């Protein structure tokens, strides 16, 4: 058997077992809208942890971070810098989000804005922002999936074919099992990711340099500027680092899929306990960076930095191990794509299409539309992944800058009585416009600062100024419980 067939067979078996688990997750559960989107709000600590870890450690962990360690050096440390901070943010913000979610039957992030600010147009805009910025994040997963399978099969399977097969499986189990499927696939994905990353993060520096310390000493000697700011870049200095860490830490949980994951928890305490243990899981990120730094010396002329980890693994280990890494990597791409699809599809159907275009749609029709949207979004992400070429981290930065603009609306909505609908709407529009303008015209960083951070600062200022001169809405989360949909109240409409 050729190494290509051995690796490809093992990768395929892992992907198929993971997908099968996703399909089987729906058994013994009546899949109404509440079950499909938030699993009936019944997950305990283990399932919430698996779901959150499954979402947080994406293909970016596997390929993008090691790619940046390889091609840019010092600036990649921002990914270790923001990790503990974002969990602190989640420790304080997610429990109240969960509380209002339970009280008002919220299923999506846009539901949160709808109940707090009482404007279907603001909620629809939030849904639009979520869907638009989820697409580049989805594209990252799909692109990563293609890269992983192509390298793991020694080029035997073209990346486009791998993308099509992988996302078809994802769309299938999301369609059938919803968020429950995502959580169960996480079991196998997280176990594999932890084991493989722990192994390669320690073994590769040891094999080539005799240990992690010796690897860093060799790198510091061969490329003294690579490990400090701005590394191998010219414009990612300390200001960029600090502003990126801040923007990412506050913006991280503004991704719509994390709201959905939060609503699945049985209690607010589970969310807090989860935040306490999650930073320990981020240690895996450091191990991935070790591999990227190793590749700088071992594979000095790679054309695509995102391939540093996989190419080094292929060079170092036998084909069967590459197959395991390929399988773990493929699931690491498929799983986040699954909940991103679910969140995007629900946002579109429930918060964008129904309130604006078809107010008379029943919940059952909304659920049907959401399922169709899973396939539409899959096709969109596939199109962008096959026909465009952008580095994984660049795409991620664009998405973060966009969704981070929702932070003022969430934080002020939870803790301030003075914020107004007009204020949040104005801040959001200005913030997103500035972030998009700066990033799409190549002005990121701008005067050394992360473009999303600048946009967020202006967003906060505009929100405060407009809120100061517009009337405050009475009600919000204090009003009696509002069932967001008939399905929430009855939980009986089958998806």
């Amino acid at each position: 058997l050729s190494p290509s067939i051995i690796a490809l067979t093992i990768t395929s078996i892992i992907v198929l077992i993971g997908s099968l688990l996703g399909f089987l997750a729906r058994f013994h559960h009546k899949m109404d809208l509440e079950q499909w989107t938030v699993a009936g709000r019944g997950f305990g600590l283990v399932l919430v942890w698996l779901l959150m870890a499954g979402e947080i450690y994406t293909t970016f962990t596997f390929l993008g971070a090691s790619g940046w360690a390889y091609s840019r050096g010092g600036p990649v440390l921002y990914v270790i810098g923001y990790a503990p901070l974002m969990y602190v943010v989640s420790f304080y913000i997610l429990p109240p989000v969960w509380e209002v979610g339970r009280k008002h039957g919220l299923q999506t992030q846009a539901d949160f804005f709808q109940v707090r600010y009482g404007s279907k147009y603001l909620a629809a805009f939030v849904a639009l922002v979520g869907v638009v910025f989820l697409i580049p994040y989805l594209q990252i997963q799909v692109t990563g999936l293609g890269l992983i399978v192509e390298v793991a099969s020694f080029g035997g399977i073209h990346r486009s074919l791998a993308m099509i097969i992988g996302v078809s499986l994802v769309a299938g189990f999301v369609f059938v099992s919803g968020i429950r499927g995502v959580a169960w696939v996480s079991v196998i994905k997280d176990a594999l990711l932890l084991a493989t990353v722990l192994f390669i993060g320690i073994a590769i520096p040891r094999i080539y340099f005799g240990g992690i310390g010796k690897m860093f000493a060799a790198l510091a000697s061969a490329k003294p500027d690579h490990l400090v700011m701005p590394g191998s870049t010219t414009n990612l200095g300390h200001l960029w680092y600090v502003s990126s860490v801040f923007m990412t830490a506050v913006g991280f949980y503004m991704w719509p899929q994390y709201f959905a994951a939060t609503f699945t928890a049985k209690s607010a305490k589970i969310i807090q306990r989860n935040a306490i243990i999650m930073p320990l899981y981020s240690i895996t990120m450091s191990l991935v960076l070790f591999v990227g730094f190793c590749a700088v010396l071992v594979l000095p002329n790679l054309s695509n930095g995102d391939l540093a980890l996989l190419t080094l693994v292929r060079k170092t280990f036998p084909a069967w191990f590459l197959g395991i890494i390929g399988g773990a990597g493929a699931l690491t791409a498929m799983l986040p794509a699954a909940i991103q699809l679910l969140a995007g599809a629900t946002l579109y159907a429930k918060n964008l299409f129904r309130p604006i275009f078809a107010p008379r749609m029943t919940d059952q029709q909304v659920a049907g539309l959401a399922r169709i949207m899973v396939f539409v979004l899959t096709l969109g992400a596939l199109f962008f992944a096959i026909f465009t070429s952008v580095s994984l981290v660049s795409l991620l930065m664009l998405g973060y800058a966009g969704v981070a603009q929702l932070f003022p609306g969430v934080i002020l909505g939870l803790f301030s009585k003075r914020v107004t609908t007009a204020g949040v709407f104005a801040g959001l529009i200005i913030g997103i416009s500035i972030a998009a303008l700066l990033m799409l015209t190549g002005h990121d960083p701008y005067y050394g600062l992360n473009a999303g951070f600048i946009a967020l600062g202006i967003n906060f200022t505009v929100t405060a100024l407009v809120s100061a001169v517009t009337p405050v809405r009475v009600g919000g989360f204090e009003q009696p419980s509002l069932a967001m949909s008939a399905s929430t109240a009855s939980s009986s409409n089958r998806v």
Partner: protein
Amino acid sequence: MIFGLPFNFFWLVLWLFLTPVCMWGAYHCEVSRTKGDRGEEGSSR
């Protein structure tokens, strides 16, 4: 270099260990305060 890591890398990894400790402390303070508040409410009745 500390424990084989450059200082900036070591510092960031150190906080991955210290953050759960700090949050664990905050969590227990909050739980104790919540219990205390409930106790006060109970005794005022």
